[in-house]
């Protein structure tokens, strides 16, 4: 029993440095994403910067704080593949809202 516990400890703790690095990076990235609003970037530049910092932050939190980087692929893949369903849903709803806003503009201008 004590033997397995020791073995478990080897695999479950990491050096404090990695957590502090990720922590610091998250602060820096949050600061940058706040700067996007501060300098009032607009249009494609704004949206791509927001998405870039968002995915970087989310990835760092999931990989290191939630330990997914060290988990076995059986768990990682069970968690990440369902996200493709969400991506599909987003794609469907984007085309849906484009259609809705088109019909609204059309009928407000042309009339029923």
């Amino acid at each position: 029993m004590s033997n397995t516990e020791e073995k478990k400890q080897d695999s479950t703790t990491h050096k404090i440095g990695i957590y502090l690095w990720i922590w610091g990076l998250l602060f820096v990235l949050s600061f940058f994403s706040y700067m996007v609003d501060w300098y009032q970037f607009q249009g494609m530049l704004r949206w791509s910067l927001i998405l870039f910092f968002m995915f970087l932050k989310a990835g760092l939190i999931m990989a290191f704080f939630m330990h997914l980087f060290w988990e076995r692929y059986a768990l990682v893949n069970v968690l990440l593949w369902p996200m493709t369903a969400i991506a599909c849903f987003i794609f469907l709803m984007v085309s849906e809202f484009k259609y809705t806003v088109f019909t609204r503009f059309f009928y407000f201008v042309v009339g029923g």
Partner: protein
Amino acid sequence: MSDPKIEGFELKPGFSGMAKDTASDQTMFKGVHWGKAMMWIFLLSDTFIFSCFLISYMKGRGSTIVDWPNASEVFGLHVFGVDVPLLLIAIMTFVLITSSGTMALAVKYGYERNKKMCGWLILATAIGGLTFVGMQAFEWSKLIHEGVRPWENPFGAPQFGSFFFMITGFHGTHVTFGVIFLFIYAYKTFAGHYDEGKRGWFTTMKGDYVEIEILGLYWHFVDLVWVFIFAFFYLW
């Protein structure tokens, strides 16, 4: 952080390891505590709920022909005679990231069986979460005073209010429950329940520091959701 060696058998890494784990006719998540696997499944379902909220927000905002309220003005604060855009939200983001970092360290010290450090860090996390909820309550009351309702608001498209209260409210509820459990777990850590293997209230499972990691998963998820809310609701 699964154990790569189980009962003397070396597990294969990577995709071939995944195929072997899945096809082994045994437990699929090898070396993963069942509580942790169940927390992950719960978080996955929670991901879908929050995604549905954010996607319906996207659809609502995209299909309205009235101008959407400018978030950096609506959530700006007037401090020391200057208007600072989005100040409160930026502070909330930093508070939540701080508490996420202390939680990650608490998990690490828990596995090193360092009771004191682990307990204090969980307590620090709980206080960070409490600060966050307090600031959210301030933000809500400020907006309600300014006349934001789920059906109307003075800034622009009327859908803004309902999406705001629904999304941040649901997230705030998650934070609140997280804070309650953080206080309970801080007590349990200081009381030494995880060193002695004391059983919990509704379970026959013996107390172990893996519970801190499970709690940590939930707390990091709350932070993760905030990353998306911050990007899509406040910055976009």
